[in-house]
């Protein structure tokens, strides 16, 4: 296990908890990501792992070594971590080559050259950071962080200063480079698509709590809570009730409930339904009124209103013309419906 974070707590002051009993692990060679809205505490978590901020309690292990516990706090320069900063933090007075070889590392010339080639910086070694484009600066930041062969690479919003197309291109490339070097990493981002594209394991944070630490598929299809469901991707919440053990009934149909636990009378729950799991089916007995419809890349995005007033969104990939304010039959693919309390 390359990174292990256990029961980390941190308060900025009495009212604001930025880390509330956070635990997760990342295996060797894997890339983890922390996502969440701004102010959720993800960057603070990263900085605590790097050693720039001190947790109130808990412990942190990196590459099997204890770096933080209630009686130990290893200095950042001795933590075996590399870091890519949001603003890159390149040294403006040093050339690209001097930036990459900064610090007391024992790299051979050949290794540095390989790194420069891998990161696509060949020919720019003698330039200064301000002479480079944003994307190139990003590459220097990555190469510099990788040069000392860190046990763990931390990345704080590494692509947020780049434009969209470059961001996608670079995030794939970075994933490829990390794989090549077998580097374990942790990425912090507010952009979930970036996390999906790069990370093996993703944590969703909100108000200093780690809501769920899971694979991208599980976050999307099996969100553990209302907040995760709302933050990751799009979808609608529909009121439903558990009528008997194993069955949930709602305005859009009945679904099986395979959660363990006994039923204590009728219990109201929420169904979380992704737009791509909603289909227009004229034979269906469940009717809903179309109140909004707009074109979206592949297909059209419809918003229906159920008799109770709940709204349901639907992504129709082979759209036919529908009329607003008319009732249509809809059906829901029950494989991916999530039950939330």
């Amino acid at each position, binding site marked *: 296990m390359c990174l292990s974070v256990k029961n980390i707590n941190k308060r900025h002051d009495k009212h604001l908890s930025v880390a509330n009993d956070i635990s997760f692990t990342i295996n060797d060679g894997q890339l983890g990501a922390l996502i969440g809205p701004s102010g959720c505490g993800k960057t603070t978590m990263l900085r605590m792992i*790097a*050693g*720039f901020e001190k947790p109130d309690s808990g412990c942190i292990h990196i590459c099997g070594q204890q770096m933080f516990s209630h009686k130990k706090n290893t*200095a*950042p*320069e*001795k*933590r075996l*971590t*590399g*870091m890519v*900063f*949001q*603003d890159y*933090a*390149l*040294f*403006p*007075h040093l050339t690209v080559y001097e930036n990459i070889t*900064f*610090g*007391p*590392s024992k790299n051979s010339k050949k290794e540095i050259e390989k790194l420069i080639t891998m990161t696509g910086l060949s020919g720019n070694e003698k330039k*200064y950071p*301000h002479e480079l484009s944003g994307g190139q600066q990003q590459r220097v930041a990555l190469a*510099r*962080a990788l*040069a*000392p062969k860190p046990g763990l690479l*931390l990345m704080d919003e590494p692509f947020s200063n780049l434009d969209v197309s470059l961001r996608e291109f670079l995030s794939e490339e970075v994933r490829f480079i990390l794989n090549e070097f077998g580097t374990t990493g942790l990425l912090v981002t507010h952009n979930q698509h970036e996390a999906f594209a790069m990370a093996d394991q993703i944590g969703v944070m909100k108000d200093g709590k780690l809501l769920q630490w899971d694979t991208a598929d599980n976050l999307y299809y099996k969100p553990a809570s209302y907040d995760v469901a709302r933050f990751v991707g799009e979808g609608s919440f529909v009121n439903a009730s558990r009528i008997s053990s194993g069955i949930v009934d709602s305005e859009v149909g009945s679904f099986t409930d395979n959660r363990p636990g006994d039923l204590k009378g009728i219990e109201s729950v929420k169904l979380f339904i992704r737009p791509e799991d909603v289909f227009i089916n004229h034979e269906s007995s469940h009717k809903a009124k179309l109140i909004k419809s707009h074109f979206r890349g592949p297909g059209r995005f419809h918003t229906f209103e159920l008799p109770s007033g709940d709204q349901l969104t639907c992504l129709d990939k082979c759209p036919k013309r529908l009329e607003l304010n008319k009732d249509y039959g809809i059906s829901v693919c029950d494989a991916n419906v999530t039950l939330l309390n």
Partner: protein
Amino acid sequence: MTELFKRNRGFIISALIALTTLSPVIFIVMSGFKAEVEIWSHLKQYVLPELLKNTALLVVGVISITAVLGVTLAWLTSFYDFFGRSIFDKILLLPLAIPAYVMAFIYTGLLDFSGPVQTLIRAHLPFLSPYFPEIRSAWGVVLVISLSIFPYVYLMSSSGFRSMGRSVVEASQSLSAGKVYTLFRVTIPMARPWIFGGLVLVFMETLADFGAVSVFNYDTFTTGVYKAWYGFFSINAASLLASILVVIVLLIFLTESYFRRKQQFFNKGNPMPIQREKLNGKNAFVAFLFCASVFCLAFVIPVGQLLVWTIESFKMEISSHYIKLLGNTLFLGVIGTIVTMMVAIILAYSQRRMKDFKTGVAAKLSLAGYALPGTVLAVGMINVIAGVDRFLISFFDLFGIQISNGLLRGSLILLPFCYMVRFLTAGYNPVFSNMTRLTTSMDEASRIMKVSGAKLLSKIHLPLISRGIITGSILVLVEIMKEMPVTLMLRPFGWDTLAVKIFELTSEGEWERAALPAITLVLAGMIPIFILTFIGRDKK
């Protein structure tokens, strides 16, 4: 033709201002070439070697000491937290309120043979007395000037350290670099454009200093220029010496703009602020002690001594004569400020829409006067007057009007003009930085709403730039009040100011009598520092 003027209005106006402010320099260089061969060989043989040696020693000494003091203090207050840090952060600028010539006479009075310190030593520790160093020496001047201007380096280094933000320091740490390595490989090199910028200011101030070196009878180029004019009555000799200074100043001036340009590469907008490391125990004590001792030496002791002298001599000195001096100082200050601010506003407007290279150069040249030592400016001005007077005399001669004396020589209008040349930058910078908020789209927006002309000026422009005008006026007024060499050399008879009086009194060793005018200037000097620290810097 009018079309051409309209299109190049900004450039033409800035170029005219540049030509006016640079006229003294142009005349100096022209007249320097006219210096008689005997004068030149005399200067070369007897005067120049000593002046060069003294000036070089002074500049090197002051730069070294201010660099160590300024950078160390800025480093402590920017990266560490200890008892008193936030107060030191502000009050370490206060020594700037004490003009170097005031600092000079205070320390001379304190430390020379008949001063209280040596008297005390002779009375109680007589065996130490022979080892007491002579204050009227090169090291004395160097220390005194350093104490009064090190805040320039401190201020600039602080903003250098603070503008780099925390992430580069953290990046260095994450690359396994230790503290010392980070300091010398990242922190100081990254702040270098600011540190050097501060040192260039120190260089200019030291080179331009006239008052402090006069108190110590330490001959440098500025006093050389003064003596050549006052002693030999040779304007050409003075001009010759002055043109050597002009060349040096020109070099520094170019260096300064180089560093200023470099700061832009290094500056990355709004970085995350540095997290100061808390110092404890011995380290905290040493940091506190260092800041406190520098502050005591550079502010508490001199101001304390001034107060003591002022109290001793108050009854004698607070007379109609003092009131007259104060009146003269304020009168010249206000007139000078009005002239300076008018030119500053015109220049700022001419720069507003024209963003091309030649207009920028013209503005830069217009502002170059701040680099000119006062004595050089005065000698240049004397040359200009002579030229203009010659022209006027021959002009009136055409109409049969005979004028024996020059019209401008000894006239009061020269001083405000000189102040404008010297302090235009101080007035221009705040106005211009306010004006950057005044975008062209605001003009367009108000035009669309049918507001233009005078109404546009009074409703939109004036409210937005008025703060800049006020700040600029205060800065200029205080600078003029403290100004010594130009006023000394060009004032009409009977127009002594506080600064001139201090010069006269201290050249006779009358420290106590100089205390009241000096403390007046120190109090005035504190106003801009309060504006700078408590309004300007807090907002960042």
